[in-house]
């Protein structure tokens, strides 16, 4: 993978640029790190994550917010990255699947997904996990109807195992701050 000139591990001063260009620079906070986007401010967050930052865990599936493969957390809530222009993301706290576990090796949901072997082709699972993470933040002990309300699509049909994985994570003893 070639070096990515856009990637920053910590906030850096914005280099002097023309006023018109500076207006277009969007400061972003993704997985606890600061980034500055100076491309098209209308670019959807999904393509910024994937093409610019090469955080490819958020997947493309439909581009219209129907499938959930690109689900990320924005200020703790599940959102479809394909529908969010980067310019609307300034000052928002964005978490992608790559940042979900934080300092831990795995988030309890990721552990539960492995334990239940909820994989199939695996393409939708990162979005499923992010949607489940938002649910558990909102409701740490969700009932069956809450889980079934997750609208993300799985073409393989792993729904029974996704349900089991969420239930497992929700009933697992809470570790650390999560």
């Amino acid at each position: 993978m070639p070096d990515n000139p856009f990637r920053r591990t910590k906030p850096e001063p914005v280099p002097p640029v023309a006023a018109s260009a500076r207006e277009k620079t969007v400061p972003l906070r993704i997985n606890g790190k600061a980034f500055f986007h100076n491309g098209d401010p209308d670019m959807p967050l999904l393509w910024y994550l994937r093409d610019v930052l090469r955080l490819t865990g958020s997947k493309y599936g439909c581009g219209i917010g129907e499938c959930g493969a690109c689900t990320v957390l924005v200020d703790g809530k599940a959102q479809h990255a394909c529908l969010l222009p980067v310019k609307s993301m300034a000052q928002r706290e964005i978490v992608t699947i790559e940042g979900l576990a934080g300092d831990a090796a795995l988030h309890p949901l990721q552990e539960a997904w492995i334990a239940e072997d909820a994989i199939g082709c695996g393409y939708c699972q990162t979005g499923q996990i992010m949607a489940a993470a938002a649910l558990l933040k909102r409701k740490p002990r969700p009932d069956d109807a809450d889980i079934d309300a997750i609208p993300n699509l799985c073409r393989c049909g792993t729904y029974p195992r996704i349900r089991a994985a969420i239930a497992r994570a929700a009933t697992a003893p809470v570790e650390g701050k999560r």
Partner: protein
Amino acid sequence: MIFDSSRRRFLAVGASAAGALLVGWRVQAQDDLPYLGARFQAPQLTDFLRVEADGTVVIGARGCEVGQGVKTDLPMLIAEELDADWNRVRVEQLPYGYVDTDSGPGDRYGDQGAGGDATPAAWAQLRQAGAVARWLLVQSAAQQWSLDPATLRTEAGFVIAADGRKLGFGELAANAATLDAPPNPLPLKDPAQFRLIGKPMRTVDAREVVLGRTEYGIDSYLGNALVAVIARCPYPGGALAALDDAQARQLSGVRGVHVLPGPKPDAPFDGALAAGVAVVADDTWSALRGRDKLKITWKPDPAWAGDSSASLEARAQALLGDDAHAIVVRNDGDFAKAQKAARGNTIQARYQMPLLAHATLEPPSATIAVSRDKVELIAGLHDPAGASRVLQAITGVARDAIDIRLPRAGGDLGRRLHNDFVAEAALVAKAAGKPVKLVWMREDDLQHDFYRPFGIHDLAATLDHRKQITGWSHRVAATPRNWRDERLAGQPAFAGILDADAFPAGLVANLQQWFSALPCGLPRGEFLGGAQAFQAFAAQSFLDEIAHATRQDPLVLRMNLLGAPRMLRPGFDTGRLAGVLRIAAGKIDWQHKPTNGHGLGLACHAGDGAYAAHAFEVSVDGNDLTIHRAVCAVDAGRTLNPLNLQAQVANTTLAAISASLHEAITLKAGQVQQHNFPDYPLLRMRQSPRAMEVHSIDSAADAASVDDCVAASAAPALANAVFAATTVRVRKLPLMPELLRLL
């Protein structure tokens, strides 16, 4: 030397610089002397098996993982014979292994199709590789201890002497790599000794998947590949009439616009599916914006411009009334005579199946670099050998200079059997003169697919005075699968749509199957369940209709048809099918019909040496169908990995439910009407069965692939349950719109 003469493949042993033992099948290459070359340098050998000095065992997975579990299951076969410690096994995806041989193209690693390799031959071949490595390690230990190798045993990564002394595989690897491979194929384990086969094993790369680190085709990058998207002609067989790309070219980030030719008229679909205009850009967003700015006029192919779903349906109905053009697929006994003898005791019904799109959640994509003498491709493929041929045809690069890397693929259902997107990527890369990543948007995917065929089934059955089925007529008018499909070239028009041996063939004395070809301009292809599912919906729904019309229990009717357990023909044991039917019926509590408005339905199917029966409990409330329970009983012979078998059966059941509830591709004014998930709705979690149970019979019979068989019995069992709950018989898929129309 172990030599598989039919495939000109031999097992070879080598050593790596770091002292690892390497074992791999190698195809006899042009420059190999016959029966020579068992030893060669490590870089040449990307192997099935590497035993490293630290004891890690690296096993190569040869098929592309599309969700069917090959990346976990096939390495289990190798690890079994090696007696490896599964916790110290690492599975790595092998690239496509093309090799030139003196008798033409060869496959270094064997069949790399994504189909599942559940064949006895694949089992034997992979197990032999593990057995040879084990044999070498045992010889090495015997030398070190000066003991008779016959006195040594192996377990979980160790060679163990009778006195309890142990040596780890890693300690033995370097010396083992200097030994010669055994001269003859080794005996394989007796199944009673299996330690891994038959044990539930989780997906080997699950951790990478849930962390979002797995690379799918759409995630791949090659050098500074540009991103390409294509505007494709929405009319089948159509062409570009006019293009104004001035605005697109002016956009920042857009690097080029390239016109791509469509398929040659009437020639096989061996390249791009449609004429197109590619926009190449720095990133996906710029490419999409560029594509939006193209001003294109497309010219329809007059042959298909007027097609609509209504006209297809009308023509199919007309064909069913016109025997002159029908092909006889099977003709047992004399159906006409049975009809006369039945004296009007005949039941008839027609069932309609829509065109379906694969809608894999990861749409097609291909990342490619093309130079004068080398091609590098990264793509999720079901048929990498086919991709290699396509690339050679387009680029002129020799096949042994075409490198294909297989990432995980986001679903298949048969879509990735085709390499149209690989051809497109190569054409764009050539035109752009740079590496490109071609991505398909969902709209591209639904509008341009090799669709599951459309067809109408006409079924008729004759009955005697004891309500036994004496005659069975199954006539189909459908869009043939083999139209412009090289894979089915030379095969009859019903290939991939009708199976002459499908249930109840062989069980009814007077049975006829006829097929009439219905022309349609949309490409058609393989889809989950194939011919088995296409046929079984009609046959298994119709059996239910016969049972209800004659006041027989649908289970008893099927059991009576199957009769005494026997091998009806190779691959079809009526006792095994009756066995799964009995289990499914028992688990759904068939004898106690619910009185709460729920309905029970069942269906069964046998195919590819596998047996499946489904039973559903459903209720319909207003516009909502609730699947309370879905039970599937399967008998697929020896179970390699029960955890994956359970997943495959449950997943296939849900995919079949999805395909039958809402999915349909329709045509209007010659164009596909569906664009994205709102008009092509896939099953969501809340619509999926509240409970999904899989019951599998593990037998000593040869392992069989279950997917098609399971897909075949799911949809009719669901429709039969809907009938039980509502007394409405749905004869036209997708089920939900038709049910709501009839209610």
